[in-house]
């Protein structure tokens, strides 16, 4: 049962245009959402996050939008740059025991920025 879904395995965008990556979730208990970026042969690196009490968070070229009623979040990158080409993972946070926090990841979307 995939609780976090990224339905687009890949996305190709022209340099300078906007990239929009989408993510859907099913568990209404998730209270925090994160985006990670992963280059080949490297571990994922944290990009941006949003708490469930907000509907938007912005950091430079990156903005995450959360629509709780639709259980949907999106990552906007504008303007897109060649260095943004990577696999992007959406993750949702669920509490575990003793204060540990579990991240449930989507399948990932491979973003390619074309010059």
């Amino acid at each position, binding site marked *: 049962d995939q609780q*976090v879904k*990224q339905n687009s395995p890949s996305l190709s965008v022209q340099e300078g245009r906007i990239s929009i990556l989408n993510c859907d979730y099913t568990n209404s208990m998730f209270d925090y959402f994160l985006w990670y970026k992963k280059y080949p042969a490297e*571990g994922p690196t*944290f990009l941006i996050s949003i708490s469930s009490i907000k509907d938007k968070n912005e950091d430079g070229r990156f903005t995450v939008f959360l629509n709780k009623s639709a259980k949907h979040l999106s990552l906007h990158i504008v303007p897109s740059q060649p260095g943004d080409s990577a696999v992007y993972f959406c993750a949702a946070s669920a509490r575990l025991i*003793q*204060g540990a926090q*579990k*991240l449930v*990841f989507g399948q990932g979307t491979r973003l390619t920025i074309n010059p």
Partner: protein
Amino acid sequence: DVKVTQSSRYLVKRTGEKVFLECVQDMDHENMFWYRQDPGLGLRLIYFSYDVKMKEKGDIPEGYSVSREKKERFSLILESASTNQTSMYLCASSLPPWQGNEQFFGPGTRLTVL
């Protein structure tokens, strides 16, 4: 900067071998995690630990065990490797949620079981 290191970037093992994957973090994080990443499946949690000598199963613990004897070190053990355990293994660490929600990942170990 938080640093999470993994003992090997690439490993090739034979079916039935015992495999140890080591992870070390240098930021005094309480929580540590082992994931595996497979195409089309994203990252799936194998085991996690919230304190020394404490461990809990994640979503796919079968065929794996873990050890945390020191706070900075978390080991993943494949008791008898099988070909379906060929994967990218990622270790992560984090503070408690009230101090931050991000998990910090190591570079990964690509394990091939022949």
